[in-house]
């Protein structure tokens, strides 16, 4: 996988933003089950089920949009990897913040 240039990074951001609705919704749903551990639950759901559901939704109903990115040299693997990595980082940060807040 090659490192994206500045223009491709903008397109990666567009793709990533388009996956956030499901990721955030999953996070809120799990987090709302127990507000005492909201950030931990949100973070965990965000980086796991939320990511999977977002990408599955893309695969099942927005497949044609991948060509928007292909025509700018960005592969599906790069798009998916970026989404997973970003959600992983954000999710872990939220889990750490949530755990720290709970114990302080």
């Amino acid at each position, binding site marked *: 996988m090659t490192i994206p240039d500045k223009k491709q990074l903008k397109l990666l951001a567009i793709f990533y933003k388009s996956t956030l609705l499901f990721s955030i919704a999953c996070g809120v749903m799990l987090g709302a089950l127990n507000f005492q551990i909201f950030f931990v639950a949100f973070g965990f759901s965000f980086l796991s089920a939320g990511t999977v559901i977002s990408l599955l939704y893309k695969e099942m109903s927005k497949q044609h*949009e*991948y060509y928007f990115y*292909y025509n700018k*040299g960005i592969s599906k693997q790069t798009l998916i990897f970026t989404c997973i990595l970003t959600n992983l980082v954000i999710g872990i940060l939220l889990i750490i913040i949530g755990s720290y807040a709970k114990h302080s």
Partner: protein
Amino acid sequence: MQSILEIDSVMQSFDGRNILSDIYLKCETGDILGILGRNGSGKSTLLKILFGAMKGDHKFIRIDGEVYDKPFKTTGLVCYLPQHSFLLGHLAVATTVAFYLDGIGVDAFLDDELLGKLRDNKINSLSGGESRYLEIKLLLNMPSKFVLLDEPFNGVAPVMIDQLKTMITQHSATKGIILTDHDYNNVLDVANRYCLVYDGGIKHIETKNDLVRWQYLTVNSLD
């Protein structure tokens, strides 16, 4: 500058059925290669394999002497118009153009009888024909050596088809263009080379009688 694209030994099967077997195609700058074929003959599959969006059971792609596995990953080589719209519905026309042309010549691009009045509209508010026109114009204006158009005339009004054909002809001066469509009359009109995907292979076409010979048209279809 003259560029040459060759795709060779293409093989693809689905559910045990051979769709494409040992296809060879060549396209050079200045070529407008029209590919015809019945539904399910493998035209779109061939273009997707050539673009790199589909792996193919086997293929060999060479552009200007270099071998590529997925040509789309190298900027400036190939771009592809799929059958269904590939634009993002929530973006505005002007934003989409800016992304695709890297911000260069956006105003000149939108200085267009049709697109000028749509520049601030969201893509998902365009009609099918308007969207198609925009997609084709975008791809033809990208700095790529080859443009693959899958059913470019589908759902487009006749007057717009004429504009698209003029655009395709103009851009063929600096690009190689491969197009497929069921509107064979317009394909035959705009293309300067023709072939037919038949029974998994490629048949080179010189006249409409060849299309009858290879069972793409009936005798009654001839003018």
